[in-house]
């Protein structure tokens, strides 16, 4: 069955405010697709348009090729998991799961069968008669998933459903969600501001900022080849050094970064000499030696020990912050505030993108 979701040139405006700028995006059938962005970037608005709680100002939402314009929320083949789960507190667990089937007029015996099967899927067999208030956070989470799956949706919409859980549970639920997606083959559209969630679970991620699509790519490409300065700084940790383009040739760019001299990096898009551009280097690509393509002198501010790795927060001569990530075994006792650090990186690990860090 085709359960693709096509945002066909949709625009969403509230009065003068444009929540979602013109967007044309096709989410494939059976894909685990995430929208990643800071709060207020319009990602929840997209979910509301797909589910039918909002009608786009322009354009159309197509699910399985069918135009959803004028189809009310209760007639769409979508199912949503809310940020606060929104389980019905006055119903039992089984009644919650069966609600969507009750609406569709499914017989009681049939409903019971489905809820038993789903309770098994989410590993909560025999909890059907419990009250919602008797469940723990993680259990509620799974009931919300079961309730959403009971109506056999073509598309499952998830609105930051893991944000209320503690770290361990969150990581566990990530694997479970991915597992459920694999088993059911339903298209998952996942909304989050947590890049860890987006990168670990998704087939593809759309990064959004201020109602605009920044980049749509698989997690590895998003991390390795960001298209915009926003994506480079939002996805993962990154050091950005802004300067003027000196030269661009064969996918390699040189920028002039003032007192830091000329720095070299890869560039996926052509750059014009003299334009403002930013060179991004991941903390793990900076090394404590001077044997690589480019060197940067810094002074150490502080050392953060984070278990398996160390983060060195340092400053360049012109007070730009640079963070360096090292394996915990590279710790040296003379790493104290004020120490001079000579850093270097390989040009293939750095990326030059037009614009500045704050650009959206």
């Amino acid at each position: 069955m085709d359960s693709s979701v096509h945002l066909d040139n949709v625009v969403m405006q509230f009065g003068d405010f444009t929540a979602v700028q013109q967007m044309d995006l096709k989410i494939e059938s059976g894909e685990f697709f995430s929208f990643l962005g800071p709060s207020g970037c319009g990602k929840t608005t997209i979910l509301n348009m797909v589910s039918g709680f909002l009608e786009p100002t322009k354009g159309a939402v197509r699910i399985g090729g069918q135009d959803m314009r004028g189809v009310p929320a209760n007639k769409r083949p979508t199912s949503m998991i809310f940020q606060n789960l929104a389980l019905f507190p006055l119903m039992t667990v089984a009644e919650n799961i069966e609600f969507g089937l009750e609406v569709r007029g499914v017989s009681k015996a049939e409903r019971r069968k489905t809820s038993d099967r789903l309770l098994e899927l989410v590993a909560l067999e025999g909890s059907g008669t419990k009250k919602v208030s008797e469940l723990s956070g993680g259990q509620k989470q799974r009931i919300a998933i079961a309730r959403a799956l009971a109506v056999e949706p073509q598309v499952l919409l998830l609105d930051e459903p893991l944000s209320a859980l503690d770290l361990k549970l969150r990581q566990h639920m990530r694997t479970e969600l991915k597992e459920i997606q694999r088993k059911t083959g339903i298209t998952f559209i996942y909304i989050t501001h947590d890049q860890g969630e987006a990168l670990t679970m998704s087939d593809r991620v759309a990064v959004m900022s201020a109602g605009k699509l920044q980049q749509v790519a698989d997690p590895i490409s998003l991390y390795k080849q960001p298209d915009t300065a926003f994506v480079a700084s939002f996805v993962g940790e990154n050091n950005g050094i802004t300067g003027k383009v000196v030269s661009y040739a064969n996918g390699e760019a040189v920028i002039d970064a003032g007192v830091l001299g000329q720095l070299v990096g890869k560039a996926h898009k052509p750059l014009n000499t003299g334009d403002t551009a930013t060179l991004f280097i991941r903390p793990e690509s900076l090394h404590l030696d001077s044997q690589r393509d480019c060197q940067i002198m810094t002074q150490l501010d502080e050392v953060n020990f984070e278990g398996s790795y160390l983060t060195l927060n340092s400053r360049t001569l012109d007070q730009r912050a640079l963070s360096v990530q090292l394996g915990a075994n590279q710790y040296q006792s003379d790493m104290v505030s004020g120490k001079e650090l000579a850093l270097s990186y390989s040009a293939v690990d750095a990326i030059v993108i037009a614009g500045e860090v704050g650009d959206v």
Partner: protein
Amino acid sequence: MFSQLKARFGAPLSVGVVALIAVWLIGMVILPQLLMVDYSFKPNLLPSEIGSDKDHYTLENYTTLFGNTIHLTIFFKTIWSSVLVTFLTLVVSYPLAFYLAKVATPQQAALCLLLLLIPFWINEILRTFSWYIILAYKGPLNALLLGLGLIDRPIRFLSGDGGVLIGMVYAYILFMIFPIYNAIESLDGNQIKAARNLGAGWIRTHYRVIIPHAKPGIATGCIMTFMLAAGSYAVPALLGSPGSRWFTQIIYNWFFEGGDWNQGAAYAFLLLVICIGFIGLVMKVFKVGLGDIAR
């Protein structure tokens, strides 16, 4: 609680406040009521007979009602009509309360609430009189309906129960709207969205999600409206016809026309007790506890 008061206001002021409340409650609420209870169990005597053999407790005043079929009929009719008033008020108020709590923008809600409140700044008698004028045989409502061609001769709204029902629904609508509005307001909007998202139409969303949540508010509104309706005097006196006499009018007659306070007191207590019993029964049927209502 007293120690909290003392800690905040000091001993003299706290004692003063508590004493004032006690005087109010005991002197102006409890004692007069007890006096009426006492009255209701005594025969109506001439002043000279007080203290004589005839001055003893009796159930006679209470049994009078059950021997008088006209009074008994009016009694049950009052209860039934009050149920009807409560139901009609609920039907009118629920959509409005839902609109105010979940649909309207804050400005729209404020405007609506203001429009609801303003008429209540006017005296109840005056408001009831204006309904009398509106509903009169040659009044503006009949004129309007005639003018629109919806009827070809005026309707007698004020004969029968129609006028009383309309007047009461209007008089008590706020007592129904506010508790329901409060209850619906506290419902998480995502609950409604979740129900819609799972395929529920509007009727089922109300019936399965919103109304169960708002049940305590609905119960509070219904109890207030019912008690006010059953104990109402002004509306039936002004808008009623001889056929729609209210039990309160009979009580009034015993007190001020029959001059029999003992009999009037007994009737008043019967109305009170039966109303409370009726409410208790209805609460049991709809599985609403006192605790739910106090929330």
